[in-house]
C-alpha cells in the first residue's frame, strides 16, 4: 500500500473550477473528494456550501458549513459563512451571534466580520451598535460597501454632516467609484453646498458619463439656476439608462413647465406619477401645471390627493385654496387658505394668496391685516410677481376704504398673477423631490 495522499491534493482544482463557473465538473470533483476523505475534506465541503448557496439552497448550504465548522472549529471562515447563510435566511439574531463568535475566534481584525456584524445589527434595528461596527469596518477595510452602509445609517438618522464626512473619506479610499462620488455629491446637495456637490457630481460623470443619479443631481443644480436647457440635456442622457425614474420625469416635466411647454410638462409629470402614484411632489407639480393651463378641476383632484398624502404642509393647502378659488368655491378656498396660514404663518406666498382670497370673499379687514403682515415680512423672500400682486391688492383695498363702497370686482390681472406666484414654489418642490428621491434610490 503506498503512502496515502494528503486530502487537500486537489483543492486548487476545486477552487479553479468553481471560480470559472464550471460547476458541473466542480461538483463531481467535490463529491469524489468528499467520498474519498469520508466526509472529512473541509475545503471540499466549504466549496460545496458556497455552490449550494449560489444556487439558492440556503438551508443545505448552512448545514454544509456547520459540518465544516465541526471538522475544524478553529477556522473563522466557516463561522463567517454560517453567519452569511443565516443572514440570507433572515435569521439575523443567529447570524449576529455567528459573526460575534467569528470576531472572538479571529486572530486578526477582519473588516468583513465588522461589516457583517454592522449589517446584522442594522437589521435588528440596533443602529448605534451597527454604526460602531461599521466605523470599525470602514477604518480597517476602507471598502465601498461598508461606506455605503454607514452613510445609509447616518442619512436615516439625519446626521447629514457626519454622512458628508464619511462620504468624503469614502471618496478618498475609492477615488474611481462613480457611485461613491455621486453619493457624496448628493449629500452635499442635501446640506446645501451646491458648489461642492457640483464638483463631486462632475467628477462622477467624468468616470461614468451615463450615471443617471449623477446626471440627475447635476441637472437639478442647473435647473435651480434656471438653465433649463442644460438641465434637460443632462436628463435626456439619464433617461436612456433609467427610463423609469420618478424624479427624472418629474424634473423633466418641470423643465418643460418653465419653458412654457405645458403639454409636454403634463405628459412627463403623468409618466412620473404613473411610476409612483402616491408621490405628493409630483401630484403638486401636476396640480400646478393644470392650474396654470386653466384646468382647475383636474388641478383640484391632483392637489387634493397631495393634501391627503401630506396634510402637514402649508403649501399644499395654499394650492388647494387657489384651485378652489378658481372653481368659485370661495368658502372652502377660505378654509384651505386659513389652514395654510395656520401652518406656516410667515410664508410670503401663503400670506399674499390668503389676502387675495379674503379680499375676494369680502373680508376686507382681514385682507388688510394680511397685507400689512406681508409688508413686514423679510424682503428677501419677495419676488417680482409677489410685489406686483401686492401693489394691485394694496391699490384696490385703499380704494375701497376711501370710497367706503361695496368692493369692486378684483382686477382680472390678479388671478393670472396668482398662478405665476406659484411658479417659484414649484421649483422648490422640484428640488425637494429630486433630493428625496435620490436618497430613496440610494437607500
Amino acid at each position, binding site marked *: *500500500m503506498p*503512502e*496515502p*495522499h*494528503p*486530502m*487537500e*491534493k*486537489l*483543492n*486548487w*482544482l476545486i*477552487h*479553479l473550477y*468553481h*471560480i*470559472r*463557473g*464550471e460547476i458541473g*465538473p466542480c461538483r*463531481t*470533483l467535490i463529491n*469524489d473528494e468528499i467520498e474519498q*476523505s*469520508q466526509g*472529512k475534506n*473541509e475545503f471540499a465541503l466549504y466549496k460545496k456550501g458556497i455552490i449550494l448557496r449560489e444556487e439558492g439552497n440556503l438551508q443545505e448550504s448552512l448545514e454544509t458549513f456547520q459540518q465544516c465548522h465541526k*471538522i*475544524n472549529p*478553529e*477556522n473563522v*471562515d466557516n463561522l463567517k459563512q454560517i453567519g452569511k447563510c443565516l443572514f440570507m435566511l433572515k435569521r439575523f439574531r443567529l447570524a449576529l451571534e455567528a459573526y460575534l463568535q467569528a470576531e472572538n475566534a479571529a486572530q*486578526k481584525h477582519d473588516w*468583513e466580520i465588522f461589516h457583517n456584524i454592522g449589517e446584522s445589527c442594522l437589521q435588528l434595528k440596533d443602529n448605534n451598535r451597527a454604526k460602531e461596527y461599521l466605523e470599525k469596518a470602514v477604518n480597517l*477595510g476602507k*471598502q465601498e*460597501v461598508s461606506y455605503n452602509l454607514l452613510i445609509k445609517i447616518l442619512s436615516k438618522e439625519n446626521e447629514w454632516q457626519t454622512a458628508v464626512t464619511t462620504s468624503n473619506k469614502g471618496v478618498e479610499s475609492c*477615488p*474611481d467609484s462613480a457611485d461613491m462620488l455621486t453619493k457624496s455629491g448628493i449629500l452635499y446637495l442635501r446640506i446645501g453646498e451646491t458648489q461642492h456637490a457640483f464638483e463631486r457630481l462632475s467628477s462622477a460623470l467624468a468616470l461614468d458619463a*451615463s450615471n443617471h443619479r449623477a446626471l440627475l443631481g447635476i441637472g437639478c443644480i442647473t435647473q435651480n439656476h434656471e438653465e433649463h436647457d442644460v438641465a434637460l*440635456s443632462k*436628463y*435626456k*442622457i439619464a*433617461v436612456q439608462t433609467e*427610463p423609469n425614474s420618478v424624479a427624472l420625469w418629474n424634473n423633466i416635466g418641470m423643465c418643460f413647465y418653465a419653458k412654457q411647454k405645458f*403639454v409636454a410638462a403634463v*405628459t*412627463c409629470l403623468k409618466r412620473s406619477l404613473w411610476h409612483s402614484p402616491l408621490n405628493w411632489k409630483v401630484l403638486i407639480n401636476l396640480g400646478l401645471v393644470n392650474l396654470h*393651463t*386653466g*384646468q*382647475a*378641476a383636474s388641478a*383640484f*383632484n391632483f392637489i387634493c390627493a397631495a393634501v391627503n398624502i401630506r396634510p402637514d404642509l402649508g403649501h399644499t393647502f395654499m394650492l388647494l385654496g387657489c384651485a378652489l378659488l*378658481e*372653481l*368659485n*368655491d370661495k368658502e372652502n378656498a377660505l378654509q384651505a387658505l386659513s389652514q395654510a396660514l395656520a401652518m406656516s404663518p410667515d410664508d410670503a406666498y401663503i400670506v399674499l394668496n390668503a389676502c387675495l382670497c379674503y379680499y375676494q370673499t369680502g373680508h376686507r379687514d382681514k385682507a388688510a391685516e394680511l397685507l400689512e403682515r406681508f409688508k413686514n415680512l423679510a424682503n428677501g423672500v419677495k419676488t417680482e410677481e409677489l410685489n406686483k400682486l401686492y401693489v394691485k391688492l394694496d391699490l384696490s383695498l385703499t380704494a375701497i376704504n376711501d370710497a367706503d363702497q361695496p368692493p369692486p370686482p378684483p382686477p382680472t390681472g390678479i388671478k393670472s398673477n396668482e398662478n405665476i406666484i406659484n411658479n417659484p414654489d414649484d421649483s422648490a418642490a422640484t428640488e425637494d423631490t429630486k433630493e428625496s428621491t435620490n436618497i430613496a434610490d440610494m437607500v
Partner: protein
Amino acid sequence: MSRSELSVARWLDAHSDHSAGLATLPQGAILADIAGDGEHRLALLDIKLGKDSRSRLKVYKGTLLTADQTLPDVPSGIISFYTDPSDNKYPAVGIACGLDLLIYKNNKPFFKFVVPSLPISPLEVDIWSKLPDHVNQTVGKLVDNLKAVPYNTLTPRSQLLVNLPPEQYPEFIQNFKNLPLKRQSPITCVAVLQRSSHELTTPGCPIVATEAGHVYFLDPVNFQILHQASVCSTKASPCIMRTVGFFDVEFRLIIATREGHVTLLRRGYLEGKVLMHTVKDIIDMQIVPGDNFILLATSDQVLTCYTKRGNKLWSLEMKKPITCLCLIPLKHLSTSLVAVGMKDGAVQIYKGRHLVDHFSAADTPSVIIFGRMGQEEHVLVIITISGILNLKILKRTADFNLNKQDASLPLMQNKPLPLPKRSKLFLEQSARERQNAVEMHRNFQQDLIRLRLNAARAMAHSLSDSTGMGNEKEMVKVSAQVLGLGPNFTLVLNLENMNSNKPLLDLSIVFHVRPDLYKLSDYLIPLPLIPPGLTFRVETKVEELQPEMDANDNTNVQLEKDGQSLQHVKVFCVRKDQIAPIIAATINMPPTDITIPVL
C-alpha cells in the same frame, strides 16, 4: 474603418484543431525551446480526472504533437527555466504534480523535488512509535488518542487510520510501520524567477507554493531550497504567482490567494505583505511590465488595475464572466497588451484600460498564452474549455494605436425624449375643461359623494345580512343540497367544523320560508356537538304548497317580489343566547313542474 475590420487584419488564423480534446487549465501551458533546437514548442498539461485515465504532458511542435507522456498525478502547473549557466542548450520543464515538482529535460525525467514535511504533532509521532509494538487491544486505545489531535493537523496516514474500522488497524499499521511519518502540503502553483539576468537562456529559480501557504525558492542547479517564506500571516492558499526582478538582486513575487488576498514577497521577506483584499474570488492575475501594475480578473466580471503598492487605479466591467488573462508583451511596439478571455468565446485585448482589439474563439477560452512558437515570434495560443486548440499569429503590420474615443455621449444627448405626440382628444378635453371647469368640478364632486353613499350602503347591507357560505371566525361551513323534483323536496344540509381544535357546541338550525309557499317538516333543528374536522348532516322535508290554479297572473305576483324570486329557504345557524346568526344561507328552491290538467 470599423473595429471588426481591424481585428481581422491583425491576426492570422494559423491553425485550429477541433479534435485536440485538451483539458488544460491556466498555468498549464508554456511556450519554450524544449528540444534546444531553437524551435519553440508548446508544452501543455492535459488534465484527466477519471479513474482509468491519467493526466498527460503533451508537446506540440508547430501543429504536430511530438511528445505525449503520462504523469503520475494531476498536475497543477508547468514552468520552464534554464538550470545551469554553462548548459543553456535545454531548458528544464518543471511540472507541479501533487507533492512533487517533476523536472524534465528534453522530455526525459531529470529530477524530482519533494516539498518538505510540515511539523507533525509530537503526540502523533509518539503514538506511531508505539503502534507497531502493541497488541490488538491497546491499538484501539492509541488510535482513539490520535483522534484527540485536530484532524487537519494529522498526517494523511493517520487521517486514514482514524477513519478505518478497528479490524483493519493491524494490517494498516504493519504496512507503514517502518516508514517515517510525513505531512506534506500539495503544490498549488509554480513560477520562475530569473536569477540575475533578463536573458531568457540564463538560469531562473523555480518557485513552489503549497496549499499550506509556504513558498519555496529553489536553486536551479541542485534544487535545494534557497529561501523559504510564507504567503501571509493568516491562513492563505496561494493560487497564482507572478514574478518581477531577479532573485540575486531585487525581486517582487506577487501572490494571489484563494481567499482573495494579494500579497507581496520581496527579497528577505519571511512573510508576505498583504497588498489588497478583494471581496470576490480572483480568477487570474497579470503584472504589466514597466509600471508593475497588477491586473486582477475577479468573479464579478470585473478587470481591475492596481498600482504595485495595491492602490486601485481603474476597473472595467466586462459583459461576460472572465475565464483567463494573458499578457502580450510587444517589444517592437514597446507596449504590453492584455488579452481577456471570456465565457462563450469572446477575447478582448486591452491596452491599459482601453479596448484595442477583439475577436471570438470557438468557445470559452480556458488558457491563452502568447509567445514564440516555432520560428514565429508572436503567436497566441488559445485552448478552449471544450478542448479546441487554436493558434493565431500576430501580423507584423498590426498596430494597436488607440482608436478615437467613441462619440457615444453626444449621440445620447441628441436622442429626443421618448414623449408621445399630443393627441387631438387630449387637447379637446383640456379645452373643454378650461371652459366648464366649475361645472365639471361640481358634477364630479356630486358623483363622488353619490359613489361613496352607494358604497356605504352596500357595506351596511352586507354587514347586517351575514349571508355567505362560511364563517371565518367560527370556522363553520355549510353546504346545501336539494333533492327531489317537487312538490316534495328533501333539503340536506352539511355542516362542517373546519376548526382542527375546538368542537362546535350549542348550535341549532332555523329555517325561514314563506308560509304560503312552503311547508317544512322541521323549522328548528338543534344540533349535537360537532367534533373538530367532522361534518354533520341535517335533513328536512319541504313541501311546496300548490297555488290556486284559477288566478294565473296572481301566482306570478306571489312568486316574485321586487324582481326577486321568493322561492327560497333561508337557513340560519344560531348559537344559544346570541342574537346574530353564526352563518346564514339562502337556498333557492327549484320550480316544480306544475302538472297541467288535461283538457
